[in-house]
């Protein structure tokens, strides 16, 4: 749960308009069982109190391991799932309480690009028909006008407009993702939530798609929430980064700040896992921090700081008291960390001694330096 105020959450330069505010959003999925009568006996805490805000034209990179709730958060922002509690405000309007009809104008301005370009396009419909959906749902247009718009759209994302009558199976992965982007772009939205838009693509195609997204952002003043687990991709596209762990934000801040001065041990270990091709770029800071153990189950998350069973710096307090997401001393405005013992610049995390810090339920041998 964030105790930070809105002012802290936004980057400085406060004159830009806030487009999206996510305020202490919680999503719990019930775990049901029972043959005749459904009984809810547990819940998956997929997203458990997340707050952030986004300004017009900004890109927020959302990173974290698989299953940490990134995709669920994306579906809460786009109102595909109802929230359990909390608020999502778009242009100041709370969209969590809207009914279907009230949602329609919001649907036009908030769009989503999906991860799997094979699953997100209906295999039995022609591309022209898929891309005309936004127009037939929201606009009253003649058939010829829709076709013209669709072909314009296809050309804009780098597809041949003549391929209007093809089925999705006749396109490559990268081309399909272009179709997905075209569909999201059709109604000129303000916010596009990209849920791992490139993780299913080849590296060379990834770059094409990312460049396309960046071009479109400049052209249409788009705001992105960009979800990925590829940290180099996130660094390339984002203005700000939010790191998620088990349904909570553990650290957020401007992109270079996070990459050069990560304060949360989880962020540090995540960044140390980015492969560096050239050994000359390796710095002392980039010692490999290997986390042991798996991500704990979000059905029954650890007490206190959720990262403590895997944290090389964990101490007794971490197991009992949850650290607030706040600005740590010495950090610039906008850099927030949820940690009792933030990593100091230059601190060799890999060698952090655990002898003095016997955390309960800790995984032994959590750290290991891998370097020649």
């Amino acid at each position, binding site marked *: 749960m964030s105790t930070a105020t809105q002012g802290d959450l936004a980057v400085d330069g406060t004159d830009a308009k806030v487009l999206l505010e996510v305020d202490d959003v919680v999503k719990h999925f019930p775990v049901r069982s029972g043959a005749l009568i459904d009984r809810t006996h547990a819940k998956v805490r997929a997203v458990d109190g997340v707050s952030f805000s986004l300004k017009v034209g900004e890109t927020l990179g959302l990173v974290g391991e698989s299953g940490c709730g990134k995709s669920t958060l994306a579906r809460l922002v786009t109102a595909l799932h109802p929230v359990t509690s909390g608020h999502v405000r778009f242009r100041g309007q709370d969209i969590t309480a809207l009914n279907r009809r009230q949602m*329609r104008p919001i649907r036009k301005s908030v769009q989503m690009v*999906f991860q799997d370009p*094979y*699953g997100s396009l*209906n295999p*039995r*419909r022609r591309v022209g028909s898929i891309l005309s959906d*936004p127009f037939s749902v929201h606009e009253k247009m003649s058939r010829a006008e829709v076709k013209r718009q669709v072909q314009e759209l296809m050309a804009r994302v780098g597809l041949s407009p003549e391929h209007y009558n093809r089925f999705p199976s006749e396109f490559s992965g990268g081309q399909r993702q272009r179709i997905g982007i075209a*569909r999201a772009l059709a109604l000129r939205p303000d916010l596009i939530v990209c849920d791992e838009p490139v993780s299913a693509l080849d590296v060379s195609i990834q770059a094409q798609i990312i460049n396309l997204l960046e071009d479109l952002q400049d052209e249409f003043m788009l705001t992105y929430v960009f979800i990925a687990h590829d940290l180099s991709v996130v660094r390339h596209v984002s203005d700000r980064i939010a790191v998620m762990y088990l349904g909570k934000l553990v650290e957020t801040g401007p992109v270079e700040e996070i990459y050069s001065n990560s304060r949360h041990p989880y962020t540090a270990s995540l960044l140390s896992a980015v492969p560096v091709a050239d050994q000359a770029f390796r710095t002392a800071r980039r010692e490999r921090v290997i986390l042991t153990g798996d991500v704990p189950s979000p059905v029954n998350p650890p007490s206190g700081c959720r990262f403590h069973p895997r944290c090389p710096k964990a101490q007794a307090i971490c197991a009992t008291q949850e650290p607030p997401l706040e600005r740590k001393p010495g950090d610039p405005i906008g850099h927030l960390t949820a940690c009792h013992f933030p990593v100091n610049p230059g601190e060799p995390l890999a060698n952090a001694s655990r002898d003095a810090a016997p955390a309960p339920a800790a995984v032994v041998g959590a750290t290991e330096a891998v370097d020649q």
Partner: protein
Amino acid sequence: MSLLRAAVELEVIEEQNPDAKGTEQAFEGRTPWRLAWGRLKKDRVAMVSLGFIVFLFLVAIFAPLLTALIGHGPNTQYTTSGLSLSGIPVAPGHNGFLLGTDDQGRDVLSRIIYGSRISLEVGVGATALALVLGLVMGIVSGYYGGWIDSILARFMDILLSFPILLFAIAIVARFGPSLDLLIFVIAMFSWPYIGRLVRGQVIALREREFVEAARALGSSDVRIMFIEIAPNLIALAVIYATLLIPINIVTEATLSFLGLGVLPPTASWGNMIAEAQTGDLFTVAWWFLVFPCVALVLTTLAFNLLGDGLRDALDPRHGRSNITPTKRVKRAARSARREKDDSGGKRA
């Protein structure tokens, strides 16, 4: 990071997508249906069955023309030329009766030709009705889930557990036999088979990302059900409709056999068989019992074999969309090799 940089540089070279132009010809017409038709064409058994079914439809449509050519009406009793002096039916090939006559001196071939009309009308009509009902109920049930699904799914289970014959007897006893009633009764008891299959498919389909994408666009439930989901069910519907037609034809024959369907003297394969086996005349004149049976068996077999072929061709359980191009090429190579081995073996 540096990987990405390298990729960005690469992009300049790869900007023109390599497969965009060169293989234009290969991509032409690769719709899911064309692909399925291509596979079906290679299935000889299915194609022969399809040919027989087309032939059967032509026979049914041109029945009056055919019987006029033969020169024997289906219900006319040829007491002089169709029966011997002792009242025995004429054997096949005699007196111009290609398949002989029945105990009342009627032309068996003409009756079979007219019977095919009833069989196809009931088989196709009842199946079409069942298909529409099954699709709508299955889609609604699977898409909404919850209490709507509970009620509809239970209703389908109840219908499936009903003894159709007893129910049909009761209905016919109340309303009197007629062809429309027959179609209605058969459809009422066959739609739950399709409904249940469709429901299962829809439950899987509604979790797919393209449904989520439609929802993100603000599409209505009706639009999602019938524009997004329904096209993905057509393959399944075609297959099970093809397999349901022969079942319904046999049900019609059964009901007519029991005197609950088509009433004499109108010819239906079911009541022809029923009439033939009432006496023991068929022990001497086997043809007027055997030929309607042969017609029924061949028709049922053809629909079943075509249905099997369609299932292989449309392959709904392993949707082609999941198969990567490399796998497809490998699979094609493997089957080509197998075919070559097979034909080689036959020659040797």
